[in-house]
């Protein structure tokens, strides 16, 4: 690596991201789709390909996934997760069935095989908690009565991914179906253990880690999350999920302060992750997938609206509240890209890259715009 070239490339990349971020902000749109576009721009076949900084971007992208999932986990406590599950059990089953089906069916029709179809099902299933939570805040809708239902569904989706991702990771590694089943049981056990863990245990861990120095706290948190994420990956549970679970276990002051300390790191490295995903896709390949992605996005938008509407109806909200819940949940984002990234790293059908980029572009932007204008 020629360090001066690498630095210059990274500088230009970051400036481009900053510019795009401003643009997104001006129009009240999420930044994720713009970062993906930047990746296309700087990637192979793009206008200014990145060469020397490549290895850094690769590692940075993995760090981005770790921080993204870790901070997400820090936002939830086991009690909140348990409560969300117990109040929205039926709605989350409907959510899973409605929204995984389009991806699975279309994956099978495309001849991507069972595994490819399941991955595409996961991509169409999971809404973007990042994009949606930010929209609810920006639009002053946190106080709305349907908002807890929306947030609960997002929380449960994130948890479902914690079981789903490890299974996909093992199957991708070429292990037998039996290996996938074992991995599924292992991750389900770990997730349940984390959920059922008495809150005193979480407080204990957090008390040991707490220190008055922000610097020491930040470095301890980085050490713990990187070590455990790496171990999780070694055990085929997927490092993304390792980081997520560590975040859930930590609670109280450590979680509160950790979130504030890690958010800037997450924002910078997650941006690198989205860019790196775009880097892997040749923009020229996108064109042929546009009709497919449009169709997939349309069906997934309708199914998400339906499941969100029903969940709000079941919790007793009026017509407008139901429509808002349905529309708000349409936005897909970071987790769809994380899942596709893991699947591509595992050597799955490479068509999934361009399809995911287009799908997330359409639904992150479309979902945000629709939410803004929802009744």
């Amino acid at each position, binding site marked *: 690596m020629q360090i001066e070239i690498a630095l210059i490339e990274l500088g230009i990349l970051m400036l481009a991201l900053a510019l795009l971020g401003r643009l997104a902000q001006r129009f009240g749109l999420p930044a994720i789709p713009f970062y993906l576009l930047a990746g296309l721009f700087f990637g192979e076949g793009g206008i200014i390909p990145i060469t020397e900084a490549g290895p850094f971007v690769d590692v940075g992208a993995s760090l981005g996934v770790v921080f993204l999932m870790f901070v997400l986990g820090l*936002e*939830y406590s086991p009690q*909140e*997760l348990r*409560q*969300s599950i*117990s*109040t929205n059990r039926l709605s989350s089953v409907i959510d899973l069935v409605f929204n995984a089906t389009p991806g699975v069916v279309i994956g099978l029709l495309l001849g991507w095989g069972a595994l490819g179809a399941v991955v595409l099902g996961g991509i169409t299933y999971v809404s973007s*908690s990042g994009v949606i*939570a930010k929209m609810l805040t920006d639009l*002053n*809708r*946190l*106080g*709305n*009565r*349907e*908002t*807890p239902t929306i*947030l*609960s569904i*997002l*929380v449960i989706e994130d948890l479902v991914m914690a079981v789903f991702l490890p299974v996909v990771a093992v199957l991708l590694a070429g292990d037998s179906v039996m290996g996938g089943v074992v991995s599924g049981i292992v991750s389900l056990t770990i997730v349940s253990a984390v959920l059922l863990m008495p809150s005193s245990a979480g407080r204990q861990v957090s008390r040991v880690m707490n220190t008055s120095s922000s610097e020491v706290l930040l470095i301890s948190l980085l050490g713990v999350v990187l070590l455990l994420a790496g171990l999780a990956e070694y055990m085929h549970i997927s490092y993304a999920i390792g980081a997520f679970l560590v975040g859930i276990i930590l609670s109280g002051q450590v979680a*509160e302060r950790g979130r504030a300390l890690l958010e800037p790191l997450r924002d910078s490295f997650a941006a690198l992750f989205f860019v790196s995903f775009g880097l892997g896709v040749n923009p020229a390949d996108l064109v042929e997938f546009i009709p497919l992605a449009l169709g997939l996005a349309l069906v997934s938008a309708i199914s998400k609206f339906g499941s969100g509407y029903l969940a709000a109806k079941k919790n007793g*909200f*009026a017509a*407008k*509240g139901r429509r*808002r819940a349905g529309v708000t949940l349409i936005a897909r984002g970071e987790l769809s890209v994380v899942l596709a990234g893991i699947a591509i790293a595992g050597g799955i059908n490479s068509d999934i890259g361009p399809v995911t980029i287009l799908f997330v572009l359409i639904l992150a932007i479309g979902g945000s715009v629709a939410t803004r204008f929802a*009744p």
Partner: protein
Amino acid sequence: MEWLIKLVQNVFVEIFETPLPGIGIRYEFDTQAGKHLGVLVHRDGQRDVLVYCDDDIDSCNETVRLSTSESASLVELLGGTKITERLSDLKHEVQGLSIEWVSLEPSSFLVNKTIGEGRVRTESGASIVAVVRGTESIPGPGPELVLLSGDTLLVIGSQDGVIRARRIITG
């Protein structure tokens, strides 16, 4: 027992509490004039005062963001010290007793069971002394009363007993 229920109802309105995963807790209640009001307590101490729309009951007309010190000032203006006085009155009158309103979630195992079957008093030592069902209230319910989802139960006992009872009722 009826004086006690009246007393509790006079000091407090019934406040509904909903957790917002990742954000905080929202409290809401209806005013006598028919307005729906709420307060969103963020984890970082920020508070949003929520005024709900009349025609779209699930959304807010107005969200007023208050910092910790601003909400302290508002509480002062609204007579927070008076509430504390009345609270200590209440404590005085029922020394040694703990009182709590517990609402019966649809997920509770007590739903559609009689009070007797629920064995709350046997297990916790605290009693269910009243049940509020919609606008109707049932003071001094017998063991044969069937509890329904959405009921609010008034539980009285020692402090520990009430905590145990709450745990049994919320499942």
